[in-house]
């Protein structure tokens, strides 16, 4: 009974993680940047949702506008900041995004991020779905479906569109891609934009559950890092499987042992797995 309910909630958590870590995988794949500021984009999305809701906008408008705004900010950041260190060693990109994460968090603190706020669930999504004896809030069902639909759309887009072709080419071999005339600058602008927007979507839809404050993205960032490492850095299908594994482990751990201990359990599991499978579930993660 408890286990079944936890399993469902684990799937919900996994869906949010999936949506969030796809952006991490995309940026890594195309730009070889591990984006420590991805959690800050999540917080920014959640906070933007609150601001928009407080200014009288309906939930749906916030869900559309917040990711749009954060996505544009992502494009701007890539153009203004990431572009400066494109050909520098990997260390610099790590340090840069780390500094950026602190900067964004600092700004959010000044803009009301010190208090924990909760985004109200729209009336249409209030209520409970009962599957047999197990009850799940309708909002969580919506959340999972939205994440799955968005992920599916992104994967289809990556597979079938011209942009997707370029992204996959740059992912496989950036130099060869550049030789074939792919404009890496523009591609990176769009990839960072899309990835930031994805983080913001998960921030807004997560705000009624995970609440919203300046550092709300920190914990999910750690979970997402565990996800991409389990799935293999840069592997999309690895990330999909790993997101649900991490989601289930986290929720079961929280249910039986409490949140902080669940995090430790996850870390130990990831470490144990890395001993034998450093390249993730499908063995396609990069180790350079």
């Amino acid at each position, binding site marked *: 009974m408890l286990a079944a309910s936890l399993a469902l909630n684990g799937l919900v958590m996994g869906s949010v993680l999936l949506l969030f870590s796809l952006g991490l995988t995309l940026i890594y794949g195309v730009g070889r940047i*591990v984006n*420590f500021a991805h959690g800050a984009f999540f917080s920014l999305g959640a906070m933007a949702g609150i601001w928009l809701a407080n200014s009288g906008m309906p939930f749906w408008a916030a869900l559309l506008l917040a990711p749009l705004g954060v996505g544009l900010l992502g494009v701007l950041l890539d153009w203004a900041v990431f572009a*400066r260190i494109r050909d520098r060693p990997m*260390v610099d990109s790590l340090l840069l995004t780390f500094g950026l*994460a602190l900067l964004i968090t600092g700004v959010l*603190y*000044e803009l009301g991020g010190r208090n924990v706020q909760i985004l109200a669930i729209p009336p249409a999504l209030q209520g409970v779905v009962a599957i047999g004896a197990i009850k799940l809030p309708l909002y969580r069902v919506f959340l999972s479906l939205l994440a799955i639909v968005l992920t599916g759309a992104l994967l289809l887009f990556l597979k079938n569109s011209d942009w997707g072709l370029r992204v996959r080419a740059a992912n496989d071999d950036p130099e060869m891609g550049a030789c074939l005339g792919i404009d890496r600058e523009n591609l990176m602008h769009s990839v960072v934009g899309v990835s930031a927007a994805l983080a913001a979507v998960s921030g807004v839809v997560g705000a009624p559950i995970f609440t919203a404050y300046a550092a709300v993205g920190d914990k999910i960032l750690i979970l997402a890092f565990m996800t991409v490492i389990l799935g293999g*850095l840069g592997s999309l299908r690895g990330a999909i499987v790993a997101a649900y594994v991490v989601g289930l482990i986290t929720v079961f751990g929280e249910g039986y042992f409490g949140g*902080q201990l669940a995090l430790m359990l996850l870390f130990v599991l990831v470490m144990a797995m890395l001993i034998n499978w450093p390249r993730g579930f499908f063995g396609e993660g990069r*180790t350079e």
Partner: protein
Amino acid sequence: MSDSVTASATQSRDMTVRTRALVLLIVAMLGASVPLWTGSMPFVLILASQAVIAAIVALSLDLLMGSTGLLSFGHAAWYGFGAYLTGLAAKYLTPEMLVVLPLTLVATIVLSAIIGFVLVRQIGKTFAILTLALGQIMFALVFVMSGVTGGEDGLQGIPVPTAFGLPIVRPDVWYWLLYGVLLAAVAVAFHIRRSPLGKAWLAIRENTERARFIGLDTGSLKLLSYVVSATLAALAGGLFSLFNGAASPDLLNWFESGKVLMYVVLGGVGTIIGPVIGAAVFTITEHYVSSITNSWLIYFGGFFVIIVIVAPGGLFGAASSIWSWITASRRGAAS
């Protein structure tokens, strides 16, 4: 002719080594004299002591980052681990510093060797991500064991430590003690840098694959560097909690790790003395800036971003490149 060129080159190298040693000596003396002129301002001495502790942590991270090129985003994990373990041992076991500190060091060596065993096998980015996660785990551990560690409130009531049974209370004695540890650590770091071990570490930083090809056991060497670095950080943490009389979970925050990283980047990765100076400058600046504004994080993050873009070698690196540019042009003008 080539003989005379090499001769003059060695001579000028001797000169720079001698000037550098002289500058270091003067800086070291200046540092040691702090308690002599802060008698009327006890707070400045406490701030200076904190700067010295920060310098030890910075040095510990530089031993890892600057030697083997492994980037740790969770160095506060070891700093905080040392602080809590020492604090707990002093509170429940004995306040004798010469017992609790070695105990902490041994525990850190064991634990960091186990964790490092898995960590150092990961390359570059995975290592960086996992160290960040480790920092969060240590942070979580404080709350999991809040019955012992005091959780949110921090670890309170660490007794005044003793050395050989004598309590250490006077702030100037504390300062000299901390400063002595720092000087010893810097001396050891310089010695390691010149030893075959240091050369092997540098080889790993420059090109791990080639280092392996010439027969270096890169895995063990990386692990050694990780353990040394973690242990020194834990020592700094232990000294901090004894000095401060309390430890708080803030010590393990990832912002704290970011600060340590900032010391090293600001001072120049791998320069040993740069991160030490960077830490001192940064700690003192932080104190005065955060007393003016409370949006310190914005300035900190923004400054971090700018430093990485504009001066990846750190301020020390920028200064030394300006210095070598000046000396080079002067030499060019002389000939």
